[in-house]
């Protein structure tokens, strides 16, 4: 029996001595109650408390920083740690740990941005996205807010980040802690408590279930310590005004690290999005380039078509002009040879007759050459846009063509007024050409009228020249400007009158065509788009 007692004493003494020499203390990140400082040391209200208790016993402490209360409870249960500094008591936890008297309490409140706090209060708890730091509260507290979202990450600042990013509408947080957290973040946004205190959770020292003696000792020591001035100092340090600054400073330092990490991540994310944006910009650029190329190709095609049309018009002109120039040359050649023969045979009257024909053909050639030059000049002349009245122009034309009108017994009538805004000189020439044609080919009677007609409807202003001749046959109406051909043989003109009119119209951005609706008499229109006219007027 003595031997047994000796053996028991030999086993117990070192065990107890060891137990008394070192407390293995578990804590988690739960500022300001407990947290790991920037140097990796344990810090906080509860850490100061356990240090003070250990000091009175002359015991050393080994701190174990664990991820969350769940791990702490497990460590207490399997005896790998002796004490935890600040833990709420729940029935489940009492199976693994022995709880002391409470030494502090955590008031839990709901926090929301000041601007939306009223709305959150009105809706709470339905329809409010509530977040809380996962693992920070006993299950019993959390179970009261089944819609609350446990936020990943072990640091409570995550809650504030989520709140600031508007991922949640409100956060469940210990009141003292939240104030410190916001101060530490130095956020310009205001967050305020919404409604009453949700919960007040007492905090205890929790001792491993395998250390009932130690539990007894700590609980007794705590009861006597919390009434001392030293304890008041600790409370003042962590929850008083000064304490706020100290804690905030430490948290700021810690947060600087966190922010640096966030910045680094943001930089990576930024780089990723920058690359995405660059890729998107390149795709957009490629699309734009393709569109520009397509537009350029279309412009080129339409320009080519216009050029081809012009070329074919020019070929047509060349064809007709070469015929109309060759034709008098044949006559001149024939008549002059015959005239020489007649002179040789002393038939001077016959020779004179032939030379008159030579002269007439030379005049015809000259008119044609001048006509071709006129057509080519129209494209080169600069235009001067001005306002003028149609009847004034008609009077000028009547004066110019006085002889012709008299000879053919034609009355030129214009009983409608219109204000035109275009090049007066070019328009006058075009109109005169049309009137001349009307007089020459459209006035077969003893008494004739050539009428100038105004048709103003909406944006359109058309000036028409109507004769009382046979009209233009249907099958020639579309070709008449293109072919530059006279419909009747006639020696009096160059044959290029309509070609000149067409060219002038093009220059004045107007169109010219034969009216298809007239039964008798030819009606030619010079057609201006009034909106284009007003644009030109504004530009002028």
């Amino acid at each position, binding site marked *: 029996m003595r031997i047994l007692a000796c053996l028991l004493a030999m086993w117990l003494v070192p065990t107890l001595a060891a137990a008394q020499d070192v407390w293995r203390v578990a804590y988690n990140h739960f500022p300001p109650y407990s947290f790991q400082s920037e140097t990796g040391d344990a810090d906080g209200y509860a850490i100061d408390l356990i240090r003070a208790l250990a000091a009175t016993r002359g015991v050393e402490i080994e701190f174990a920083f664990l991820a969350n209360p769940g791990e702490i409870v497990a460590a207490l249960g399997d005896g790998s740690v002796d004490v935890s500094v600040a833990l709420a008591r729940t029935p489940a936890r009492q199976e693994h740990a022995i709880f002391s008297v409470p030494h502090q309490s955590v008031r839990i409140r709901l926090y929301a941005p000041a601007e939306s706090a009223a709305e959150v209060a009105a809706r709470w708890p339905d329809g409010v996205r509530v977040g809380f730091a996962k693992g920070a509260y006993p299950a019993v507290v959390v179970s009261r807010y089944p819609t609350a979202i446990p936020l990943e990450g072990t640091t409570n600042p995550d809650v504030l980040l989520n709140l600031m990013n508007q991922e949640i509408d409100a956060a469940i947080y210990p009141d003292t802690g939240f104030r410190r957290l916001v101060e530490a973040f130095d956020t310009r946004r205001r967050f305020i408590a919404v409604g009453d205190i949700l919960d007040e959770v007492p905090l205890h020292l929790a001792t491993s279930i395998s250390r009932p003696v130690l539990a007894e000792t700590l609980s007794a020591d705590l009861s006597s310590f919390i009434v001392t001035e030293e304890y008041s100092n600790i409370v003042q340090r962590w929850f008083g005004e000064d304490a706020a600054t100290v804690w905030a400073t430490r948290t700021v330092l810690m947060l600087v690290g966190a922010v640096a990490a966030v910045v680094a991540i943001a930089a990576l994310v930024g780089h990723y999005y920058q690359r995405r944006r660059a890729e998107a910009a390149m795709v957009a650029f490629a699309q734009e380039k393709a569109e520009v190329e397509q537009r350029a190709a279309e412009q080129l095609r339409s320009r080519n078509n216009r050029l081809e049309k012009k070329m074919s018009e020019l070929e047509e002109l060349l064809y007709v002009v070469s*015929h109309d120039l060759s034709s008098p040359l*044949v*006559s001149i050649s024939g*008549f002059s040879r015959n005239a020489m023969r007649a002179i040789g045979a002393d038939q001077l009257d016959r020779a004179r007759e032939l030379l008159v024909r030579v002269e007439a*053909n030379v005049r015809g050639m000259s008119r044609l050459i001048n006509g071709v030059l006129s057509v080519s000049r129209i494209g080169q002349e600069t235009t001067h846009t001005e306002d003028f009245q149609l009847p004034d122009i008609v009077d000028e034309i009547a004066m110019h063509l006085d002889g012709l009108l008299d000879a053919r017994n034609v009355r030129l009538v214009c009983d409608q007024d219109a204000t035109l805004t275009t090049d007066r000189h070019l328009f006058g020439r075009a109109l005169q050409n049309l009137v001349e044609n009307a007089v020459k080919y459209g006035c077969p009677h003893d008494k004739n009228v050539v009428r100038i007609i105004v048709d103003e409807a909406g944006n359109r202003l058309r000036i028409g020249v109507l004769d009382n001749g046979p009209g233009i046959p249907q099958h020639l109406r579309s070709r008449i400007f293109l072919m530059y051909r006279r419909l*009747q043989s006639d020696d009096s003109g160059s044959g290029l009158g309509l070609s000149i009119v067409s060219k002038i119209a093009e220059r004045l951005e107007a169109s010219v065509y034969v009216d298809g609706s007239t039964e008798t008499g030819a009606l030619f229109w010079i057609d201006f788009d009034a909106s284009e006219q007003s644009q030109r007027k504004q530009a002028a």
Partner: protein
Amino acid sequence: MRKFRILLIEDNPDHASLTADCLQSDGEEVEVECLASGEEALAFLTDRYAKANELPDLLLLDINMPGMNGLDLLRHVKSDSKLRIIPAVMLSTSMSMRDINEAKANHANSYVLKSSDFDSLESALLQLKRYWRETDTAAPA
């Protein structure tokens, strides 16, 4: 012996008179009927055939004329079973291959360029006249 009958379709009166002169410049008298348009010529031919079964021995067709031009008239003549036997010669200042090919495609029997070298034009017209006078039947169209 009956005179060789030529129908000249020409809208330019100077060319008409010069051509008619050329055709008789060798001293041989020929009958030259001159009409100024394709429409007139077609009516004339149709009417002449219907009334007297009489047709010209040679058609000389100017190409560039207002209204029905020489090539249009050629098409009508060469697609008409009674008129197609008449030799048809085109007369034109046009050296355009478009006109020459169209004349060929529409069975013109020849194509004479109205040259401003009047002597060569005259000799070409005289040669044509002699050729078709000495040829009994028209070339198959």
